[in-house]
């Protein structure tokens, strides 16, 4: 479950986001739409606790992120929130499997190679476990990134323009994976995008205008 209340964020003296109330129930899926610069990424970063809001509250699975000290917040994010970015998501020094193992380590969870294999299998890349990112196509890289977001069994999955650098076929596949995997794990899914293809798949939609306010 994700609940955002009276959430404001200012950047360099400008209001970049203003949101009275937004709630997603556990397992619910939604899109954030808006032109670039409309505060989509800011909203995701606030929801992930990567960014602290200027005002307002973020509640994830009943936990107020504002009430957590920084290191605890990092750990909470590692264990309960899966993040997917547009690109540069994988660590080039590590293999696909090691990228997933890193997510376990960073979250302070014990190494679990079975969970790693299962997550890679879920995105159809179990045979690429030992491949380095530069040996994978962009679509494959994004699927590994999704597997990494899934490996710790998150309750909330946040994706920032996950299909923006992909061609149609790959974008379709990535979107399918996100929706299907979130649903099968009963994880809440929030995707920031300006991709029209996504809005045909997910009904609930939060549209932000240029001032970061719901249209």
């Amino acid at each position, binding site marked *: 479950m994700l609940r955002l209340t009276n959430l404001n964020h200012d950047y360099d003296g400008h209001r970049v986001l203003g949101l009275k109330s937004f709630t997603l129930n556990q397992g619910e899926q939604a899109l954030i739409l808006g032109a670039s610069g409309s505060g989509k990424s800011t909203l995701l970063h606030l929801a992930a606790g990567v960014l602290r809001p200027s005002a307002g509250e973020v509640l994830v699975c009943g936990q107020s992120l504002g009430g957590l000290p920084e290191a605890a917040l990092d750990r909470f*994010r590692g264990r309960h929130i899966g993040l997917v*970015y547009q690109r540069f998501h994988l660590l080039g*020094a590590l293999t696909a499997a090691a990228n997933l193992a890193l997510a376990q380590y*960073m979250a302070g969870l014990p190494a679990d190679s079975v969970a790693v294999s299962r997550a890679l299998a879920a995105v159809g890349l179990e045979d690429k476990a030992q491949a380095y990112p530069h040996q994978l196509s962009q679509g494959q890289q994004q699927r590994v990134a999704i597997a990494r977001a899934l490996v710790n069994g998150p309750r909330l999955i946040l994706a920032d323009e996950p299909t923006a650098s992909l061609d149609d076929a790959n974008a379709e596949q990535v979107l399918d994976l996100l929706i299907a995997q979130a649903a099968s794990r009963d994880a809440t899914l929030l995707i920031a995008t300006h991709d029209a293809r996504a809005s045909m798949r997910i009904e609930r939609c939060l549209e932000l205008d240029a001032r970061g306010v719901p249209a």
Partner: protein
Amino acid sequence: MNLFSLSLAYLRTQRLTAALNVLLLALGVASITVLLLLSDQLQGNLERDADGFDLVVGAKGSPVQLILSSVYHVDIPTGNIDLEAARSWARHRLVSEAIPLALGDGFRGFRIVGTEHGYPESYGAVVAEGRLWRAPLEAVLGARVAQQTGLAPGDSFVGAHGLAPGGHGHDDNPYKVVGILEPTDTVLDRLILTDVRSVWQLHGTDHAHHDEAAHAEQGDHPTHDDHEHHAGHDDDHEHHEHEEGQDAHDDHDHHDGHAEHGEHEAGHDPHHDHGHHDGHAERDEHNEHGHHEAHQAHDQEHHEDASAGHEHEDHAPGAELPSILAPEFDPAGRQITALLLKSDSLTAGTTLPRLINSASNLQAAAPVAEVTRLLRLIGFGLDTLRAFAGMVILAAALSVFVALYNALQARRFDLAVMRSLGASRGLLLRHILLEGQILALAGVLLGLLLGHLVTEGIGLWLSNAQLLRLTGWTWLPAEGYLILLGAGVGLAAALLPAVGAYRADIARTLARS
């Protein structure tokens, strides 16, 4: 997955840079290691070789040269001294023990040292095989000499004139090896020890009277002209040949004629002297001309009817030849190269040299003082080298810093992703610091290994030159500080990049993607 394998994975992606940094640091550390091992062992060698000898008395000249030639056996001697003059100091009340040295010959680059049993005993030498010498021309080999020449007890060898290899040989008077010493890790290992009388015998200086014919032509007094004679011949010889007895004799031939004779004389002289002295006990030691002449005459006479009964085998088995420093021994006309003195007195090191230097035409030098002087000079050079090595390490630290700093720029997004995966700021700090530590530790360990290998290499190289005993297979406590130094370098170089990682604004980094 853990922080170490993560740091290692990143270093692997920067193999070349990492390898260069490790190498740079290793070179600096290796230089310092070599300097540490070198100065420690040099000092240890110098101190061990001089241990126990408070004073060296020799011919006037450079005190350092006297010490180098008589204690370390690396330089040529300053000249010879009259046994009679040296002996008076050996009996000084401040002197507890005196050991004569007669140098002049060598064998395959190893020095033959005419001395007494007290010399190897001073180094705590133990006979490994055979026994110590009991007669002239019996030789005892240092461990290294035995090992490198392959000589064993029972073998014979011919000493070469001069200390450098290849001098003309005393073919007619071979030495007989009677013993080999255990390694002492001192200068003793590369010496061939024999009795002083062997050197005299080979060089004929104990036969002043044999030169009578030759010197008579010059109008010289035959018996106590050795000094002038020596000086007179200086010009005719290579400098390095101004050693015991070498003043004498281009016309070595007289040897051949008297070789047998010499053997006799060296063997039974002490006996003879003994009896002789009994009759002249009250004689002033310094007024011996008359006595000396009488003695010489007697001596010769004695030889004329020399009997087999006076062969050196007369000595009780195992007994050393009587000391040439004993009052019974007639010193007239004999020379030695140097006298090593020991003293129980704490002030002897300062009192005696002043006394000796002013009261005689001899020179006294204290090994400890000269070694300290030498080490100070070397120490200055070592400090300079150490400063250079320090600069290499500084350069390595800078290079590691630049590498990590650049890596930080390239890895900002990776670090932000790690944060989003749950890594705390502290974890990223440690991650970057660890990378610096891995580089530093690899550099230090490689440097230590390199330093020890190079030192061992220098040791092997010097072992051919026979100058300094040096090994790389020893560990100094100071090297522990080198590891700490390396850790400090790694920490200093990684600190700024690590703090950068700690303070990175991940949201802004991620938003820039």
